[in-house]
């Protein structure tokens, strides 16, 4: 084998290993960035909400989080098989009806679920707020989610202002809605 061939093979091997290490580092950094959102909000900071653009659960349109700029958003991640989600759904529906005139939107992200089950769930609880579907759950990592339900409150500028891991209480829901609606 000539010296040149050896060098080329070595370069290819190094490039391959470097790209695999790069891919791993990119994944780790992405995960850390998402987990960083939770700790930033817990420290009282208000980082920008990651982008979200998903198809409607019922309908052919897509809904983007950016389209709600200027409104406060309660972003609730749920699944029909999740027991605490059944407690939260009526509270979210009531909050949406009570505050939407003030500029509040409740956006439900149904993830890792069968679409039909999700539609049945929405019908059973009479949900009228916007719902999107993310079957593979590709949006979960970006928001640092670890399970269901989890909820983010976003202000009118698109900044994350509060977070609840697991089921929220009525008091938590109301207080965080006021925080999100507060003019900056």
């Amino acid at each position: 084998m000539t010296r040149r061939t050896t060098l080329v093979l070595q370069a290819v091997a190094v490039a391959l290993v470097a790209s695999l290490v790069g891919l791993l580092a990119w994944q780790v950094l992405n995960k850390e960035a998402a987990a960083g959102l939770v700790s930033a909000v817990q420290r009282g900071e208000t980082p920008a909400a990651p982008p979200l653009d998903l198809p409607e659960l019922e309908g052919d349109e897509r809904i983007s989080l950016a389209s709600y700029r200027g409104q406060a958003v309660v972003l609730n991640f749920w699944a029909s098989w999740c027991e605490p989600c059944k407690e939260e759904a009526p509270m979210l529906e009531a909050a949406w009806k009570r505050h939407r005139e003030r500029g509040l939107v409740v956006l439900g992200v149904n993830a890792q679920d069968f679409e039909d089950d999700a539609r049945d769930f929405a019908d059973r609880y009479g949900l009228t707020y916007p719902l999107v579907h993310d079957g593979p759950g590709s949006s979960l990592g970006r928001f640092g989610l670890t399970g269901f339900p989890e909820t983010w409150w976003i202000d009118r500028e698109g900044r994350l202002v509060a977070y609840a891991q697991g089921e929220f209480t009525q008091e938590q829901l109301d207080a965080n809605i006021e925080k999100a609606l507060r003019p900056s």
Partner: protein
Amino acid sequence: MTRRLALVVAVLAVAAPAALASEQSPTLAELERELVCPTCDTTLAMSNAPIAERMRADIRERIEAGQTKSEIKAAMVEQFGEAVLAAPPRSGFNWLAWLLPLGGLAGAAVAVTLFARRWLRSRPASVSAGGAPGANGAPPLDPALERRVDEELARFDA
């Protein structure tokens, strides 16, 4: 050669109908091994998460309705994306996942072969550089070591 060919044909004759039967009439157990629970990243067979239970129920219904394995997998991919498959499909970019390990193995085999050949080729050269082999065919001792052995033997004899 003929015997080898006969063996390959025999293996194919047994495996092909089994694969066809598995495609046409899949069992829940084999699909549980080939699909992943989206919330826990283990196969369905190893998961008792609520979504895994729901997926099992859905698969059972589809098997009873006479769907093939490909149809059932396609339905799961439509709901949960390609990540629901325990092994990536052999198409497009996914080929990398199949070919990289094979390529790595082939590369390692080539590297080991080349290294071994170079090493074997370099051995006689070092033998000739050090002098003629000993009477038993073993390589000769290092001159310094040989001198020291002689000195030790002479001291022993004295």
